[in-house]
């Protein structure tokens, strides 16, 4: 049952969309937008949290405004296929690594999003913590210079 999609009706999807736009809205506010009682909104959200459809609520920060300079990079790690899962798991434990995914193109790759205070810290982290991992064959890193869009996949209202 783990990978089976849950059945969501139109109201569930509208609630999810409202939360994706602003997760701080109250049940009453969402209810009045959708013309349903706040208790209905509460029940639906509670159910979707319990079912793991809503994984968590998080906060998008403007780090520059809090005085934290940071660079982000996309790191492609070429691995020995036998070690790929281990490398991905190890990468996932570093606080500098924000996302880890695997991809199969011509070779098995791990793609990770990494953040550091500056280029030197980024390089030290990759050289001292990632390159020595058993199974890492080589690494390509692209530093992000400008971001045009950042958003999760939005559910659509039916």
């Amino acid at each position: 049952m783990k990978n089976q999609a849950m059945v969501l009706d139109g109201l569930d999807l509208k609630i999810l969309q409202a939360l994706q736009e602003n997760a701080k809205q109250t049940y009453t506010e969402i209810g009045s937008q959708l013309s349903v009682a706040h208790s209905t909104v509460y029940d639906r959200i509670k159910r979707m949290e319990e079912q793991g459809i809503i994984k968590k609520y998080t906060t998008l920060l403007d780090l520059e405004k809090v005085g934290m300079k940071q660079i982000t990079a996309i790191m492609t790690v070429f691995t020995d296929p036998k070690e790929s899962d281990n490398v991905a798991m190890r990468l996932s434990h570093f606080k500098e690594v924000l996302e880890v995914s695997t991809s199969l193109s011509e070779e098995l790759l791990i793609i990770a999003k990494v953040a550091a205070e500056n280029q030197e810290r980024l390089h030290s982290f990759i050289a001292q913590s990632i390159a020595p991992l058993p199974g890492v064959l080589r690494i390509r890193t692209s530093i992000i210079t400008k971001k045009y869009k950042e958003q999760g996949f939005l559910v659509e209202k039916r």
Partner: protein
Amino acid sequence: MMTPASRILRTVPRENAFYFFTSIGNYTGESATSLEEFVKKVKEVNVKSLEFHLYRGDFEKWASQTLEDKDLAEKIRNLHSLNLAGDSLRDQLYFTASKRYEKLRSELHE
């Protein structure tokens, strides 16, 4: 007991190896866990990697802090002022590191 030469010539743990990059975050897949291996890799790696590390001071830092060879570190630092690039840099670095390696090897047998 380890002599100074045998200490410098030892194989270091993988996490203390020298990892060859061509630029920030771009790892070539080549590494060296001893001076002997380092000398071999200097002959083989992409010359861009040698240029990248030499002028950042990475080679002398590894020689000094990991291999604990101040002499080699100083010799490598002296290469900066020659402003070498490409194969001339590779040849000079290879000459410097291999000569030091041979000297240490001969000290082992004295």
